[in-house]
């Protein structure tokens, strides 16, 4: 690569940089400006490293690091491969954005324990990188668990009774599922195959079949609690007790995406699409995912708390990926990967907007938010764009993920699943669009629009009444909203980037 920076060094730095950042943030406890600057610097440095790795991969290179064995024969192993690079790029770029937002949010809100907040954030980021670049299942499991633990202090940030309760649910569900289901699944795979390395095309062919294979698959799907498949989704709404930047980043990008990313890796590199479809392994889990998808959407419709509604929307959107993996077709997997990216940009925008609305107006209930679009046009504009991406309207990124997923369904012959997606998309219009529409078209609560004589036009957005959140919070939201439109044009490129890893 370039002057002295070998790919191996860059790979090691992706884990070390956030770690060093965490230490420095701790050291700069008393100097809040310096501390925030270090956070931002670490984030920028990390995304530079990941981009360097991405370029290196595009140029045909690869990187791997092998460390000590966690248990005999199973080393901690890091490796660059397309799906991991997509996830790492996504997470590291969004970390920069969310750091800017956090600085604005935490300062404006005058939050307590900010140093701990930034330290845990950085550690969580290192763990996310570990998940993304894991070269075998045990490494992935290691960082997966550490990610749960490092985000726990963020969930209980406010240290109130409600936060403690949320923390219990969070740790309880995530650790229970991973210990009860994921760990046995991993050990089972190890005892069957004698390897846990991610191998192109999977490695279970001929090792397991019939109902046992379906059981193993179910163990992986339920065991990855971070993918929030019902009935193990309770932690996600509970985690909304955290400050909004945490909800935005960890519970819309890093943590939940680590979950579905794990599923994609297992589907592609452990089972392999051809094995999955030949054995019809995902039949049952397909229906579970479809149920989760529709049920979460319906629950989202009924939530009046904006963050909670977004949380349930996330559960539904994650089920898109689970469903895509269960379909056992190449295009289903591609759809899952594109969904991973598109949803991340969309959902992080929505959460940042929710936080901005709270900062500017103190409102958390959707029913109180009418008319706010007129005084916060940028926030609501970003919200609208991101909503469109979540729904899947072109030209936004979400359109591609739905497109590929539906092709995947058609490829594998499960046409009914196309219906499920259409239904879910329609329902998501119903829970997302009214918020933006009522924000723009209705007057503020307690005010009424004066009747206008016909033929005269009045701008709904009054300039003097602009009451936006701080620039540090609004600008990142607008940026990611714009990016989620941009992804529409990058969709095929992402698909083309990961396809070689999927096609045998």
């Amino acid at each position: 690569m370039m002057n002295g920076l070998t790919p191996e060094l860059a790979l090691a730095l992706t884990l070390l940089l956030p770690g060093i950042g965490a230490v420095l943030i701790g050291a700069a406890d008393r100097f809040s400006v310096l501390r925030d600057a270090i956070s931002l610097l670490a984030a920028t440095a990390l995304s530079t490293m990941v981009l360097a790795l991405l370029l290196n991969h595009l140029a045909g290179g690869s990187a791997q690091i092998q460390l000590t064995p966690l248990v005999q024969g199973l080393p901690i192993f890091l490796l660059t491969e397309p799906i991991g690079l997509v996830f790492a790029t996504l997470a590291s770029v969004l970390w920069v954005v969310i750091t800017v937002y956090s600085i604005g949010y935490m300062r404006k809100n005058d939050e307590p324990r900010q140093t701990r907040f930034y330290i845990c954030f950085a550690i969580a980021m290192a763990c996310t990188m570990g998940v993304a670049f894991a070269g075998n299942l045990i490494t992935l499991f290691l960082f997966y668990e550490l990610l749960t633990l490092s985000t726990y202090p963020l969930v209980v940030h406010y240290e109130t009774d409600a936060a403690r309760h949320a923390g219990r649910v969070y740790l309880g569900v995530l650790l229970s599922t991973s210990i009860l289901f994921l760990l046995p699944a991993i050990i089972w795979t190890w005892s069957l195959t004698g390897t846990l390395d991610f191998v192109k095309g999977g490695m279970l062919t001929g090792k397991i079949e019939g109902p046992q294979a379906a059981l193993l698959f179910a163990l992986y799907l339920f065991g990855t609690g971070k993918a929030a498949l019902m009935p193990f989704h309770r932690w996600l709404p509970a985690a909304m007790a955290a400050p909004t930047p945490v909800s935005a980043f960890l519970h819309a990008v890093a943590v939940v995406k680590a979950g579905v990313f794990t599923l994609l890796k297992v589907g592609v590199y452990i089972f392999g699409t051809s094995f999955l479809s030949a054995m019809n392994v995902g039949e049952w889990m397909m229906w579970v995912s479809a149920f989760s998808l529709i049920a979460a959407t319906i629950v989202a419709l009924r939530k009046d708390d904006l963050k909670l509604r977004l949380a349930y929307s996330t559960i539904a959107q994650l089920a898109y990926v689970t469903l895509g993996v269960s379909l056992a077709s190449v295009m289903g997997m591609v759809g899952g990967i594109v969904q991973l990216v598109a949803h991340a940009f969309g959902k992080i925008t929505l959460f940042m907007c929710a936080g901005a609305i709270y900062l500017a107006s103190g409102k958390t209930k959707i029913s109180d938010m009418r008319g706010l679009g007129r005084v916060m046009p940028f926030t609501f504009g970003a919200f609208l764009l991101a909503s469109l991406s979540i729904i899947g309207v072109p030209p936004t990124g979400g359109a591609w993920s739905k497109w590929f997923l539906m092709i995947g369904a058609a490829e594998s012959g499960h046409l009914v699943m196309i219906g499920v997606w259409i239904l879910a998309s329609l329902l998501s219009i119903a829970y997302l669009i009214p918020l933006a529409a009522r924000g723009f078209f209705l007057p503020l609560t307690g005010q009424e629009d004066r009747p206008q004589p016909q033929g005269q036009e009045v701008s709904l957005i009054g300039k003097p009444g602009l009451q936006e959140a701080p620039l540090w919070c609004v600008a990142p939201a607008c940026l990611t909203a714009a990016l989620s439109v941009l992804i529409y044009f990058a969709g095929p490129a992402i698909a083309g980037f990961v396809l070689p890893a999927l096609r045998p």
Partner: protein
Amino acid sequence: MIRQHLAILQVMLPMLCAPLCVFARRPVIAWLIATAATLFALAGSFILFAQALNAGVISYHLGGWAPPWGIEFRLDAANSFVLIIVSLVGAVCMIYGRDSIPREIKSSDQPLFYTMMMLCFSGMLGVTSTGDAFNLFVFLEIFSLSSYVLVAMGAGSDRRALTAAFTYLLLGTIGATFFVIGLGFIYVLTGTLNMADIAVRIAGMSGSGTLHVGFAFIIVGIGLKLAIFPLHLWLPNAYTHAPSVVTALLAGTSTKVALYALLRMLYTVFSPDLPFEALILHYLFLPLGLTAVFVASIIALFQSDVKRLLAWSSIAQSGYFLLGVSFANIGGLTATLVHMFNHAIMKSSLFLAVGCVVYRTGSCSVASFRGLGQKMPWTMSAFVIGGLSMIGVPATVGFVSKWYLVLAALERGWWPVAFAIVAGSLLALFYFGRVIEAAYLQPSPENSAVTEAPVSMLAPLWALTISCLALGINSELTVSTARAAAEALLAPHAGLPAHMGP
């Protein structure tokens, strides 16, 4: 010269130091003597282990009398591995004791306390080293009797220690009696007390009723010492009311030594190939192990005293040992031995952390942990790491234990057992969660002036905590050692002299 007699010096030096401690009169000097003895034993155990791995078996004849007539100390990979566990935990606890013991025991009793510590320590090393079944009983009694006294010494701060010690004494004595009765039956049958010799002689006697009765008495006797469910009744009170150092020492070593004795009996003296033993392993140990894991963990959930909580957790862990034993294959045995080592490290570190809290707050109720996350950051972070290890989070030793236990269960094809193992470890999440939540998320009581524990206590605590992490990240050493130990246990006839061979 020393190297040649190291096997016996290892045991005798602490024993000789015991009376020296009485004569020392000044607590500091007694402490110095005791610590020096444990450090010597620690170094010795590493040398012995290296020798045992090289030579296969070290056979030391006491007084030059050849076995099976004389007493033989017989060290292979298995018991030299246990020697390391015992002397490691012993050394760490002694160093930790310098500041902790004066706080809990009045100074006139301290030399006696160190005397008892030395006797207990040398008893455990003796049980581990000896190749003679009756000699094992003798050392078992030395270590048991001294540990009753050690538990009773907790009476300085809490008089309930006396009843705890009395219960422990009663049940411990019953256990020892059962063991020696069983040994009597075996002796009647075989005419020998050398364990390797017994193993050779009973090979063709699997139908003998005498053998069955002897076996039953021995297993129940050791079971009482090991506190296998439902023979655990002495343990919670003894651990709760004993001085902190004693609890840490007993939790890390005494059950491990008893487990070693059990393994020696089950796998070397008797053999899982004997039909009645196979039945016992499958129909008694497996269900008892599972019950222990769940019942004890659930009871631990409801404890308001952290020491008692950890004690119940220890009983639950002895359930895992039973499970590993009941698999009756090399994988299960390896897992048991790995877990034996790992559990010694993590449980001792947890008890040492609680000891630090007792040192500063004078109490170990969950309520007294409130707010300690800020006030005693080093102690509590060690406690958290120990707790995570008990839960089995990867990169800690607990994960390695769990991995091998589940793997062994899968090797046998015992699905529900594999699932039960992980489910049981999950219960640890809930009982440790309560303590950790209190420490970090609840405000400390008004006007409490608690500060961090002294370095002399934190250093040994963190030595264990760091090894808990280091051996969790790289388990190569423990696992390969445990595998060698398991192989040694399963090869009773290796290295026997010609006149004793099968």
